[in-house]
């Protein structure tokens, strides 16, 4: 399958990444090689095979509904690059 620069831009947007023209070209080549490599799987006949979606045989692993393993607000904010005492801060979302 042919990878285009337009496709790279689309995937970059889905990935929340942004590339310069030069990077787009480089990633196009890389992805072309990677997709050619994984396309090998099309040779395998998988008609009627259920996809394997879970490792292990456990179902509905439950525990008592007690608060465990939480962190408090101070700890949650600790590693945030931009914050105040209560909130994470982001660029304004709703604009005039």
């Amino acid at each position, binding site marked *: 399958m042919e990878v285009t620069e337009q496709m*790279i831009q689309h995937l970059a947007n889905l990935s*929340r990444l942004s590339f310069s023209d030069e990077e787009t070209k480089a990633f196009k080549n*890389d992805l072309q090689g*990677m*997709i050619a*490599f994984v396309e090998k799987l099309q040779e395998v006949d998988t008609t009627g095979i259920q*996809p394997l979606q879970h490792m292990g045989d456990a179902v509905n692993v439950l525990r008592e509904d007690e608060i465990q393993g939480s962190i408090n607000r101070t700890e949650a904010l600790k*590693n945030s*690059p*931009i914050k105040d005492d209560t909130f994470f801060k982001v660029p304004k979302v709703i604009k005039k």
Partner: protein
Amino acid sequence: MFSYTSIKEYHSFLGTNPDGCMQAVKHYIAAIEANKHLNAFLEVFADEALQRAAELDKQRTEGQTMGRLHGVVVSLKDVICYKGHKVTAASKILDNFESVYSATAVERLLAEGAIIIGRNNCDEFAMGSSSENSAFGTVKNARDTSRVPGGSSGGSAVAVQADLTMISLGSDTGGSVRQPADFCGIIGMKPSYGRISRYGLIAYASSFDQIGIFGKNLADVAIALEVMSGEDNFDSTASSKPVAHYEEHSHKLITGKKIAYFKQVLDHPGIDPEIKAATENYIQTLKDKGFIVEAINFDWLDYIVPTYYILTTAEATSNLSRFDGVRYGFRSTEGIDDLNEMYKQSRSKGFGKEVQRRILLGNFVLSSGYFDAYFTKAQQVRKLLSDNTATIFEQYDAIISPTVPAPAFKLGEKSDDSVAMYLADIYTVYANLVGLPSISVPLFTHSNGMPFGLQLMTNHYEEELMFALSNSFLAK
């Protein structure tokens, strides 16, 4: 002069040396400093380790019961959380991130008296096979510093190889513990999927990831596994199956077991001729020792690495979406007044190239129009592989192969070719695709001076047999 061979001997040394833990920690701090050029450590917790050694020495001499890992010096791959300490996944995007909780595995090591000495360098987000993808510089193989140590857990492997710690933890998603163990001439083991809780392990591909252990002594690895294994309230995929006395099995000598090897593995065009010959000779040795060793057909070899890359990149894409520059990690601020632009700039500047490549491939296989042809297809192949594995273990007790097709390569040799790099994992990814326990044991030396190992896989949750067989293989 302090020297180390095993936890058992170290503990008897501690019996007659009231300052034994302190001697050990001082020894390792000096060794790490003297081997800085290997770049195996991103950070050494020197003061804290010394303080903990002093406390442990005091507790022991006061007659308190010793934990199973009392005074055992351990280093952690930089993807495992240890509360109050930095963890970066060797990425700029997590530079300055400090863990707010500890991994369950780390809690259990500490509860048995371990001393955590530092963080080991690795490939960024555990994505790589050479430890060249770190944002903090390449790790070097101590046996030959012009060569890679393997990856992604290269720093953890070199830490054990160069005697900079007693044991270390890595993570193994497609071979990231066994492959560097092979390249460095040490033992590297990944247990069954779900044996050790993944809570506090920075996720790469959640249905593949397992914490693994490096050591020079089989019993050490078995003890560490015993300590860390078992169910966990914070990881519902951690198995509730009982934890066996793995250490006991690591001393057993057994024979007569039925062992399979894949014909296609030894016939693969990429295999180094010496590795092929050594493995074939070893198969004869095992037969002479009384094992039944048989070649079986495995028609999947060319499909397992592609399956692995589709599924792991898809899972990685989802796992790495949490790095948004808001809650933690690097944030790009320059001239940005739009939320989406902030995400994009932060992620593009924070993630390295290989990580970005894998995110792109992951989004490709998950995107509308390609989902069924790639992602669902790979899950179906995974199901076929899993069924095939069950059939193999109806007839055999274990599967052996070389760990890697070729010995440690030169730094930079494969860094421009992702696909060539991916093929270094061709013999190891199978265990992760189907969740088997697997170990690489150092048995051989190449004519170029580099070590290589033999990989052994047993059925799900048959770690006891894996250890007993490994011990029987290592025994002269």
